[in-house]
């Protein structure tokens, strides 16, 4: 037996069994021991380097001091030494018993490959714009969704969050907002097209490639217009089998808390406004109560994660098995915001014959989620923590409750109507005697209804690779998804205030399932003739999707609320009385299908002059486009010139190691606005007419819309020019890109095309949008003895402009705020969804009223005076990651930021006496403060003020996302417990934010047509993390 797998008591039984199984598979008897030291060029030891008996799976990794000791069979001929970023070396054993090796730094990237869709390509030969996120950017972070790993780690992507609640997904836009329709990039996981990647555990991802330019994305044709994210999951590493276990304990708490008025300020303000009567204050306030709602409602909470993986492989095959468990209880008190997820991954491949390889990658996910209301001016739990009055306590007991609550309680006891909710321990959630609005006690909002969603997804691919002749690989790949989701919820009878109550009980539940089959066949041929290198690939793809679901609700208005008994054990459809009102929907299967042909032709001369052409023909089923326009053709082409291979640069090769200039052009499509028979028309009723003197009417029917058989894809056309360079022995790397992306034929709905048409038009292609930008990724990597460090930074600019929309539309209105519609707009000449409102000029020193700029000088301030106030799209996004290691210690600092984006802060309401940020109330105009810069309490035109530039903040921010300090226990210690690696770390995440924004979190505001509009989104928590990584 190898010492490596000697059982130890501390290992759990399960691990032991797994180990034994693996060891019995992977290891055979050994005869002699070879030991030695692996170092880098400067003589520093290389811990974690892999030493394998060449051609077998026998191997080991070096310990913290770079040492190894390996039993090898008698017939072993050589050892192979490898380490990430170093050149692999094969050393003949001969009769040596000690082999010391110096590994050389590999010229970065030269041999590295990136996924490009239906194949991989050497990084040095890539002629498109492809960014990569590697596993090291995801490991040991608290991110639960792979998209979160992209933010700040690559140039050319913008990650927007509408919520940071447990289990929420961010929105990602690659190279800007490309449509008036909201559409995400295409996700491809190991070749399988996925509608969502939220269920993939980031720790199981080997790399993510982002195909940013149109030529690269063109291989995915009609779905690639918003960019493509390729995810490659982990495979078993060649060589030794290993088991890794990672545990992470996170304590999370509210980060920035906006400052709102305290009781005294609140009373001052609203009495000054004349909306508050001191009599009421005397009656209900004890002159002490001063509730800090934010601190009462948010608590510090815990997230825990376990990940375990088993992996190994040899030249015949490999396996990677993993399982993970995530339990995230959000910051809201209690367990109303929870995300639990269990995932598993099974990846394996095997070469059955020299010409035949089979393999499969599978992901399994089960999740449960509960969330609280947020991001709305009405009934939002998060926003109510800012708006509630501080004089009311969170709870009262029956003994000390104010009169207004006592009255309600008495009425409930007498009539059974209007229940005051309580925590079950006699503490009643307060009803404010001072404030009645849609935003109420957050605990009532939390408890007056219960809703949960859960589901599972089993998906993956299975493939066969034929290699009948040299250079030719034919792949047949079947991808599948079996998924189901369900929701369940109920709403209780409750009383929160005279506006917010429910005197009945409601139940709802739904169940959906969907299946997806994708079958792809493609042939790749690689051939080199002297200096001519040729790659050709052609293939077909066929996808079939089916989904089915039903949902229902029951509402009871009678005495027993439609439920046999008012008790959660009865809150199911089966126990509702027959009088309850029922509603059922769904029950209709939806089917979708897609067919595609694609090909790629690459040629290079001596890896110096590079050219590549891509073409995809896509057809979607009749729900998308009519038969005549069904097929879309999406070409792309790119050229590259590796200047560093030219003789005139050979002399300076120690300074400039690699220099490549590249340019690409391509077209992609987008499914935006399609998929629901938008081009077809149906019949709608249109008024009635009596054809007699009697009140009997005939109903008129006409086509609902004109229909549009000419509807076609939105098309993105993009030009990209880029540069890749590696300097100073590849310690300095640089990638630069410029792009110009135009989306034309945006699909616009609800327009009147021309009055002579005589009906409302079906969606038509009637708009263009343009994004241009610069992207720069810089890296510096070096080591001095035991000290290694690495700095990577990226910065991107984006300039977004709507260049055309249909004549009939002056603009498309986006989100509204309370009674003001269209505070964001989609309009020609402006960035998508820019902010629209009054321009605040200042405070009238005489009256304290806000004054606005009279843009058209008509002496009236009305809608005609509204102007462009800013935008949610940042001009610049950037990120920087520093990592360093010295002996057993390592440190990572990662920061990310944006600049040039604005936030439209919708945290105020003018129709009720709600609490407000002190930003708006301090230094307000008063008779004795005529130079105050905020409006007087109760000023006129506050509704205009709160939709003016006065509520637009600079949303630029810089956040230190991660500061991690790790310590790897020394080998001497680990050897004694048979461990390969034991690393402990502590980390601070999202701990420091630098911004001028006065609300919760500048990183989390509205998305889509309300990009940058903050209506009280669930903020990112600040986190303290303790973690451990073990492998053996």
């Amino acid at each position, binding site marked *: 037996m190898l010492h490596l797998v000697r059982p130890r008591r501390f290992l759990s039984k399960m691990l032991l069994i797994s180990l034994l199984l693996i060891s019995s598979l992977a290891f055979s008897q050994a005869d002699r021991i070879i030991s030695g030291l692996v170092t880098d060029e400067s003589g520093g030891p290389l811990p974690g380097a892999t030493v394998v008996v060449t051609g077998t799976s026998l191997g080991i990794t070096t310990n913290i001091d770079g040492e190894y000791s390996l039993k090898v069979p008698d017939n072993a001929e050589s050892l192979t030494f490898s380490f990430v970023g170093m050149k692999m070396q094969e050393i003949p054993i001969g009769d040596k018993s000690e082999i010391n090796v110096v590994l050389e730094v590999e010229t970065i990237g030269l041999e590295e490959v990136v996924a490009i869709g239906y194949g991989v390509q050497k990084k040095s030969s890539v002629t498109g714009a492809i960014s990569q996120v590697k596993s090291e950017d995801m490991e040991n972070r608290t991110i639960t969704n792979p998209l979160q790993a992209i933010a700040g780690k690559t140039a050319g992507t913008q990650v927007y969050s509408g919520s940071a609640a447990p289990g929420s997904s961010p929105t990602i836009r690659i190279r800007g907002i490309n449509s008036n329709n909201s559409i995400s990039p295409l996700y491809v996981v190991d070749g399988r097209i996925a509608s969502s990647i939220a269920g993939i555990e980031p720790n199981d991802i080997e790399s993510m490639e982002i195909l940013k330019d149109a030529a690269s994305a063109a291989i995915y044709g009609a779905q690639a217009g918003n960019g493509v994210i390729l995810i490659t999951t982990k495979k078993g590493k060649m060589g030794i089998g290993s088991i890794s276990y990672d545990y992470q304990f996170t304590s999370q708490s509210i980060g920035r808390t906006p400052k709102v008025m305290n009781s005294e300020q609140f009373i001052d303000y609203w009495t000054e406004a004349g909306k508050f009567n001191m009599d009421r204050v005397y009656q209900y306030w004890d002159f002490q109560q001063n509730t800090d709602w934010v601190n009462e409602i948010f608590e510090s909470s815990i997230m825990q994660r376990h990940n375990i993986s088993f992996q190994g492989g040899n030249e015949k095959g490999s396996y990677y098995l993993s399982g993970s468990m995530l339990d995230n209880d959000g910051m809201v008190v209690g367990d109303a915001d929870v995300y639990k997820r269990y995932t598993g991954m099974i990846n394996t491949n095997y070469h059955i014959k020299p010409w035949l390889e089979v393999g499969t990658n599978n992901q399994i996910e089960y999740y449960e989620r509960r969330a609280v209301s947020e991001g709305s001016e009405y009934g939002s739990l998060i926003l109510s923590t800012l708006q509630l009055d501080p004089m009311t306590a969170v709870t009262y007991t029956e003994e000390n409750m104010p009169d207004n609550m006592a009255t309600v309680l008495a009425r409930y006891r007498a009539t059974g109507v209007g229940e005051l909710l309580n925590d079950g321990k006699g503490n009643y959630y307060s009803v404010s005697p001072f404030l009645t609005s849609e935003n109420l006690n957050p605990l009532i909002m939390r408890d007056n209804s219960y809703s949960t969603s859960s589901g599972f997804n089993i998906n993956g691919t299975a493939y066969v690779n034929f290699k009948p002749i040299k250079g030719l690989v034919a792949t047949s790949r079947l991808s599948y998804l079996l998924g189901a989701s369900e929701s369940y919820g109920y709403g209780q009878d409750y009383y929160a205030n005279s506006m917010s109550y429910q005197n009945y009980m409601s139940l709802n539940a739904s169940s959906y399932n969907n299946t997806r089959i994708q079958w792809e066949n493609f042939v790749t041929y690689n051939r080199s003739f002297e200096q001519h290198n040729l790659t050709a690939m052609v293939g077909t793809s066929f996808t079939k999707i089916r989904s089915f679901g039903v949902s229902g609700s029951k509402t009871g208005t009678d005495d027993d609320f439609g439920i046999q008994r008012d008790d959660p054990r009865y809150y199911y459809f089966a126990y509702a009385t027959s009088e309850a009102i029922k509603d059922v929907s769904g029950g209709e299967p939806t089917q*979708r299908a*897609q067919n595609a042909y694609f090909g790629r032709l690459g040629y290079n001369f001596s890896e110096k002059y590079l050219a590549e052409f891509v073409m995809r023909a896509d057809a979607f*089923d*009749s729900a998308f486009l009519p038969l005549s326009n069904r097929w879309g053709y999406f070409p792309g082409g790119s050229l590259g010139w590796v200047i560093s291979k030219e003789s005139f640069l050979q002399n300076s090769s120690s300074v400039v190691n690699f220099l490549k200039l590249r340019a690409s052009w391509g077209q992609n499509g987008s499914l935006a606005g399609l998929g629901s028979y938008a081009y077809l028309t149906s019949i709608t009723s*249109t*008024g009635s007419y009596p054809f007699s*003197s009697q009140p009997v*009417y005939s109903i008129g029917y006409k086509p609902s819309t004109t229909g549009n058989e000419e509807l076609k894809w939105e098309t993105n056309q993009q030009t990209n020019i880029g540069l890749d360079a590696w300097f100073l022995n590849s310690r300095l790397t640089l990638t630069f890109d410029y792009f110009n992306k135009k989306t034309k034929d945006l699909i616009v709905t609800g327009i009147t095309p021309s*009055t002579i048409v005589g009906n409302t038009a079906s969606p038509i292609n009637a708009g263009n949008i343009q994004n241009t930008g610069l992207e720069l990724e810089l890296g510096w990597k070096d080591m001095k003895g035991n000290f290694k460090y690495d700095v990577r930074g990226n910065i991107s600019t984006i300039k977004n402009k709507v260049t055309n929309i249909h004549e009939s539309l002056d603009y498309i209105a986006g989100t509204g705020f309370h009674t003001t519609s269209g505070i964001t707009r989609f309009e020609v000449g402006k960035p998508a969804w820019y902010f629209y409102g009054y321009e605040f000029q200042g405070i009238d020193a005489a009256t304290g009223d806000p004054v606005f700029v009279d843009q058209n000088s008509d002496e009236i301030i009305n809608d005609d005076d509204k102007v462009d106030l800013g935008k949610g799209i940042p001009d610049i996004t950037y990120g920087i990651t520093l990592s360093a290691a010295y002996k057993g210690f390592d440190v990572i600092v990662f920061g990310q930021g944006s600049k040039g984006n604005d936030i439209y802060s919708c945290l105020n309401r003018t129709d009720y006496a709600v609490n407000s940020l002190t930003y708006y109330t301090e230094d307000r105009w008063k008779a004795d403060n005529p130079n105050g810069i905020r409006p007087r309490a109760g000023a006129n035109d506050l509704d205009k003020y709160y939709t003016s530039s006065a509520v637009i903040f600079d949303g630029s921010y810089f956040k230190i996302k991660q500061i991690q300090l790790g310590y790897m226990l020394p080998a001497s210690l680990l050897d004694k417990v048979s461990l390969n690696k034991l690393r402990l770390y502590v980390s601070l995440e999202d701990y420091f934010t630098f911004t001028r924004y006065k609300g919760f979190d500048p990183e989390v505001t509205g998305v889509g047509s309300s990009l940058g509009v903050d209506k009280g989104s669930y903020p990112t928590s600040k986190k303290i993390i303790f973690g451990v990584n073990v492998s053996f």
Partner: protein
Amino acid sequence: MKRITFIYLAAIAMIFSMLSCDDELDIEQKGAISLEEYYGSDESAEGAVTAIYGELRGMMYNYKFLKNICSDDIWAGGADRGDNNDLEKMNEFTFSAEHAFLSGCFQSYYRIIYNANIVMKYIEPDTDVKKQMIAEAKVFRAFAYIDLISMWGTPPLVDHPLDPSEYQMANGDPAALWALVETDLTQAIASGSLMEKSGVNDNSVYRVTKQFARTLLGKAYLYQGKNSESAAAFESVINSNLYALYEGEYDDIFAFTNKNNCESMFEVNRVVDANNVWDNFDFWHLMIHFRTDRFTTKPVTALGLADLGWGFCLPQKDLYNAFVAEEGENGYRLNRTLKTYEQIQEMGASIDAGKTIIAEGYFFWKTRITKDAVPAAGSNFTWDHNINLMRYADVLLMAAEANLLAGNQSKADTYLNMVRARARLGNKTASMEAIKTERRLELCFEDVRYQDLIRWGDAESFLSDQGNEYPVMASNGTISYRPTGNSTGKYGFQDRNYLFPFPSTEIQLNKSIVQNPGW
């Protein structure tokens, strides 16, 4: 080894050849059927035509104002200057291409045309019902185009539902447009599928009839100067003996209790329905009824009239004078058409002391709204009045005109004098002058005057000064004239007014259309 390789290649080729899955892409939409399939039944054909009737009913507010407000019969009216800009601007010819009546009517006409085109495209004439519906659709398309051509000159010719590539359509050629009108009406009449009344007193027909189609055809010919054809078309309506001048009291022709009487060629129908009063809401009648809030101490209800109205569109003195010239102050038809303020006062209603209205001392009586037209459930607002789109008197006078111009003097005399006789006036020899006067008096405020002035070439002489001043009537009946404030040369009928402008929305949306000259 080579052979094995070929086997593999063959296997791969097979996999690829299996991928001809285009059939899989045809997935039928659920909860929807194609128009071709939907329009297979009689009921769907009826529904499609009902949509046209519905559109017609919906456009009446814009239609009635557009057709009347530019004439010399009426003032904009209302309580005070500025009460209704839309009416004042059109009455005074200071309107622009953005005017709501213009764009509203224009859109409605094209919606009618669209709905008619749908019927003609998708419905096969394989049952009697479908044949009738197709014929009715043709009548409505012609109806819309007669108005579009006569008021806009060169409206785009849309004879089928347009594809997006056709959305930007150029002006139509008047000859082709008239040809479409003639063909539609001729085919509808020839189909034998349109309804006909069973007798002169049959008031049960609520749909367009063969005779209505013929009068439209006659009108289309008349407007084109095809006088013999026009005369023949009217002749056939008259000879059907299915229509007659109403022989009861003249002012009962439009009465709420007298819907679909023998003189009605076609009425836009409304019904008394206590449960759905708002479905029958009629804003037009509310607008033109007496300005009741200025009659509070001696209310118009004393005259048996509805107790709410906003007092727009009051007669011009010029109209009254034309009546007096023909009939004398006590003319039967005059007294049943208009009332002077003195007459109103004598009947028991008067404007509150100190109040004024925009009026010249006259009130329409034939279009008055009686109390019985206001359903109890409608809280004064909802009147179930029908709107008469054409009367037999109009048919007779157009017949007289066509015959006169075609050289059939005796027939022209006969038809003119039928109308005069009912108005208790003596016979006259038909002349254009006589016919013009008769049409003005008989059909005042009935949608024809403005278009008559234009087609006769008289508009400039009658209307060039309209818009200079407006009358204000005090409670004692004194009239003062006040300047409208319109700038010199910018009001009154001008050359460009021979055609209405295409609505600005259409100009903006349709790059191919050319605006009418002067607009």
